[in-house]
């Protein structure tokens, strides 16, 4: 009896190992294909075999030197600038809102939290199109070189505004973190004569490094992974593209035959940093998705 039970469990585990290996292979092989082919030095523009015969950095070199029609370095720079600005603005507004909701008690605080949560649940897609109408009507999209900075055009400013404006609604995770800091600290500081402003800067923020880092990273990653908003806002202004729409441009009918492998190389260059950052903070991500909703 015992022997057969052990045998059965061993058999079950073996089946599971095989299943996991097959599934894992299926899941990882497209990404392996992406990386392998991006280093392909085969003469064909579109890979004719699953695994390249020769390897080299040709595709990466073309990506950064052949910038006349498709300017990947420029798109990379655009995305980087947008990411930096929206990262700063988003982080500040998220932390401000979270601190106010977590530590301060004021009239209609509950109401604000509820409205914020409901607004945050609505899909962003509808507002995006409306924002596009608005920016178009106000002719912000056609501006060139705002503040005299070359390249700082209307769509870039618009994207910064769009990515950072709604950030205040994502206060949940930070609020949850602030809630865990003992209130006794605030009270002690108040008795010593500190204002709430000082408490925020001198006590709460230094104690909240992990959540500050998390907020900074997520808002920095956002513009690198967003596709739809950038597509709507940038339209046909190729110079103001972000990497996402730029890469899509590389594989449209006009460009695919020359640019397919560069698309793969560009994808690797975007995916590697984002993937590394995400794997670092996946636990926070889970908390974020399940915050308020799932209770285990």
């Amino acid at each position: 009896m015992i022997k057969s039970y052990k045998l059965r469990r061993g058999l079950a585990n073996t089946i599971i190992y095989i299943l996991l290996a097959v599934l894992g292979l299926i899941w990882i092989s497209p990404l392996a294909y992406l990386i392998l082919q991006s280093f392909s030095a085969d003469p064909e523009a579109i890979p004719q075999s699953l695994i390249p015969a020769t390897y080299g950095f040709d595709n990466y070199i073309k990506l950064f030197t052949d910038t006349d029609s498709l300017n990947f370095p420029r798109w990379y720079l655009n995305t980087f600038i947008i990411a930096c600005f929206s990262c700063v603005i988003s982080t500040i507004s998220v932390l401000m809102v979270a601190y106010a909701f977590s530590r301060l008690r004021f009239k209609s605080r509950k109401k604000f939290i509820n409205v914020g949560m409901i607004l945050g649940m609505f899909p962003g897609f509808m507002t995006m199109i409306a924002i596009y109408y608005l920016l178009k009507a106000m002719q912000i999209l056609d501006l060139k070189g705002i503040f005299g900075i070359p390249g700082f055009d209307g769509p870039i400013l618009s994207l910064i505004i769009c990515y950072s404006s709604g950030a205040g609604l994502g206060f949940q995770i930070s609020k949850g973190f602030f809630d865990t800091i003992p209130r006794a600290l605030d009270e002690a500081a108040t008795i010593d004569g500190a204002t709430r402003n000082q408490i925020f800067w001198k006590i709460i923020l230094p104690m909240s490094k992990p959540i500050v880092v998390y907020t900074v990273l997520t808002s920095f990653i956002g513009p690198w992974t967003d596709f739809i908003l950038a597509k709507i806002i940038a339209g046909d202004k190729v110079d103001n593209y972000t990497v996402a729409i730029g890469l899509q441009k590389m594989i449209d009918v006009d460009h695919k035959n020359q640019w397919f492998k560069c698309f793969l190389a560009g994808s690797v260059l975007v995916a590697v940093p984002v993937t590394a950052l995400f794997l670092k903070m996946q636990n926070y991500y889970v908390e974020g998705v399940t915050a308020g909703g799932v209770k285990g």
Partner: protein
Amino acid sequence: MVRGQIIKGLIFLLTEAAYISFMIFFAWNYISKINVTGTSVVNGQQVQVPHSLGYVAKEEIIDADGFPVTRFVDDSMLILLYSVLTIVVTIIFFAIYIANTKSAYKVYEAKKNGEVIPGFRAEIKAFFDEKFHITLMSLPCLLIGCFTVLPLIFMILIAFTTYDKSHLPPGNLFQWAGFNNFGELVNFAGGDAKARTFLDLAGWTIIWAIFATFSNYILGMIVALMINKKGIKLKALWRTLFVVVVAVPQFVSLLLMAQILAENGGALNQLIEMITGNHTPIKFINGTALSARITVIVVNIWVGIPYTILITSGILMNIPADLYESATIDGAGPVKSFTKITLPYMLFVTTPYLITSFIGNINNFNVIYLLTGGGPSNPDYYNAGYTDILVTWLFALTMGEKQDYKLAAAIGILVFIVCATLSLITFNMTKSAKDEEAFS
């Protein structure tokens, strides 16, 4: 204001002056034209059109050098936009006005009782202490108001106008159309392409959302259970294998998938050819409606299962082990344990997550757009294809050739209503779930 708070009084006075001059010099110019009888050119004829936004779109004038030029006069878009803005500004102004009156009354009371009235400096200081929340909240609220709430109001209003390619400002006016756009969408008996497209796409959107949500949920949970099973080694490795797919930006993995599935030179067709020797490539994406739809759902499984693994792993570990032990003693196999213990437990705990991801799938623009672009296209539809869901149709109507903005806005509102209802249900359930300690 005369009670020793001169600077504060001056600031309030300035706001009032600014508001009044804003209304006279700027806003009135737009808000007075919000619903008038305008003149439009239809088939070369000047026609009077009621319920117009603006009187006349353009006029011919003779410029200084004696040449005739066209000058744009009223822009319906700006009239609508600035009218909405004016209403918002007015509401904010009255809020400030009431606050001012209240504060003046407070000071009056304080003076009567012989208390010390706080000076301007003290009032400013309060904004960093007792009133710190106002300082903190005002900037985020302003941003959210301008770029989330205002666009929503604007979008809703567009759905009740005739704003489209043939009513495109500047140069043309658009009018208020009441519920006409909604009427066109639900006029199923009329045999109109728009209504038919709407009905079909709504049906497919729901089928898609159900399949996408539940296939990911159940299959993902099974994989998570396999990884977390007692006695399975290298758990971290298996987990990472899947989670990497979540970490890669979605547009990269989807664009890549579209290329792998391509008919000509796609990697999957190469693989199939290698194994079976079959030289006719399979049309995954641009074949029949059914094959395209199945492809989208299967690829979505590839994208979505890792999310489920990521989210549910922690919760799965929390299911009390003795439940499984007693089930095994009672003779339940793994399938029975899954359907009788795991699934009910998980459904109970993760319903809000399920509803959120259902809403997410109704709005799952990326998977459809990046994979098939809505195709294969259907000539019977109004500017849509077989795999288009409502939001990708909306996108195509706005950004594509048709430029049918009013219809897109109406679709947007309908989707919005469905999602908002579901959101509110989730919200209430979440609240009740917090109080309850059931399932024990």
